[in-house]
């Protein structure tokens, strides 16, 4: 599946919460081929910021030819992207990477912070019993979008909404059981999920993140440690952008 790189029209770009933005792009070429868990690279206009910003696909509508990207302002580049308005154009390349494999009868979807967005399209496309755990530091976002697709559980570090603590605390508090776990979030959360899945004997798919340059598997900037010698690299490294970002938990060392 060939990624497309061109300028796409912004349909809408709005703030969801402090520093969290939601952008819809008119990107039929990306939407028609994309699967949940894949990402797109967004390029800044400023020549001082050369490298693409990898952003996970939050939602896609193949009929309307649009995709949704929910992202956090982490620096000048995403700040610049947050200023885009409807009818502006932004350069993007996608879809990139490999998405989630849809499997299982009883799924646990776990998103932490800015790892929550890709779980939404996954929740829409997974056709099975779904329990969705969303972890936040304090303010929630995007949670209302999940309610049509499964039972939603929330954890906040400050305890302002749902279970006080992290996503694992919420999973334990609600005694959530599953035959497959899908997770995306910060590395400490993924470590926790990996350990939990191993202990409970549940298969898990983890979506990883790393600083990227090319986004297409050439520069070897965004590798992760693997538990076996990888057939491409011939060392224990896989490329998150090309071989991932989704991996089975047993494949990777976090």
């Amino acid at each position: 599946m060939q990624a497309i790189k061109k300028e796409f029209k912004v349909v809408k770009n709005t703030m969801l919460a402090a520093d969290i933005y939601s952008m819809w792009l008119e990107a039929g070429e990306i939407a028609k081929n994309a699967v949940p868990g894949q990402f797109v690279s967004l390029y800044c206009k400023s020549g001082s910021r050369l490298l693409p910003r990898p952003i996970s696909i939050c939602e896609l509508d193949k009929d309307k030819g649009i995709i949704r990207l929910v992202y956090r302002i982490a620096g000048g580049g995403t700040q610049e992207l947050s200023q885009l308005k409807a009818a502006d154009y932004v350069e993007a390349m996608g879809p990139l990477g490999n998405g989630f494999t849809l499997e299982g009868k009883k799924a646990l979807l776990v998103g932490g912070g800015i790892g929550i967005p890709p779980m939404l399209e996954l929740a829409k496309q997974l056709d099975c019993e779904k329990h969705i755990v969303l972890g936040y530091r304090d303010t929630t976002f995007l949670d209302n979008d999940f309610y049509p697709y499964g039972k939603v559980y929330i954890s906040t570090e400050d305890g302002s909404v749902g279970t006080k603590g992290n996503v694992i605390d919420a999973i334990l508090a609600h005694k959530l059981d599953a035959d497959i776990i899908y997770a995306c979030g910060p590395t400490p959360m993924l470590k926790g999920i990996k350990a939990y899945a191993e202990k409970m004997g549940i298969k898990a798919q983890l979506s990883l993140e790393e600083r990227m340059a090319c986004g297409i598997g050439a520069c070897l900037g965004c590798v992760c440690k693997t538990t076996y010698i990888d057939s491409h690299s011939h060392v224990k490294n896989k490329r998150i952008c090309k071989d991932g970002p989704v991996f089975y938990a047993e494949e990777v060392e976090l």
Partner: protein
Amino acid sequence: MNTSVTIAGVCFKNPVTTASGTFGSGMEYSNFVDLSQLGAVTTKAVASKPWEGNPTPRIAETYGGMLNAIGLQNPGVDVFIERDLPFLKKYDTKIIVNVVGKTIEDYCEVVERLSDCDVDMLEINISCPNVKEGGIAFGQSALSVENITREIKKRAKQPIIIKLSPNVTDITEMARAAEAAGADALSLINTITGMKIDVKRKTFVLANKTGGLSGPAIKPIAVRMVYQVYNSVKIPIIGMGGIADAMDALEFIMAGASMVAVGTANFYNPYATVMIADGIKEYMINNGVNDIKELIGCVN
């Protein structure tokens, strides 16, 4: 109109190649550009055995550039010969293999393994700033440049290019040392050692602490060094360092480079190489230049 250049008897259809490490062995970029439109593909560094590279983060963006500390991760020369070389042979382009090692013996082993392969030139990487052993360790004194060049030259069947580091007091000294020891050509510049601090977390952005700075931010330094080296040696130069468009490439050529390599630009514009090759042609047409060789070093 003639865009071809000849370096050490190897004829390149145009003066554009790729900067080692930014283009893999071309596989990923073949989805975006026709590799046959390039004068040559210069591969990522190849060692005698697979190398793991550095821990992550390996990448940091900087103003108008980037730092990398990949640490020369590569699958080793055997995989390169079995997998990457047959892939590259499908295209009508020349192949320059970048060679690296931890010891002179390592370099020589790779050079010998490649000696009977259908490879056009070898680029000897004595300038990677991101590994403790090998790489730049051989490129920061004239004596060691001369020594490694001579040892490799004894064994190499293909012409060799010595890739120079800008992280030296006087790059012309290294250039002359390589030439004296029999180098067929020089390529410059490799990345400039840099550092970025994460002020929020009060730590280094890169796991390796330092990385190599590349991209448009370093271009004026690279052009200056090409100019200096052009005036110090007789062997041809492959110029690189922040080339993002045809005008950038022409700066290097006018400063004295016979060929140019496109690096970091590939990361944000996967079409950059062919766009630059086409742009050089366009410049030649618009300016009545019949032969690219008229431009090489023309400002001198």
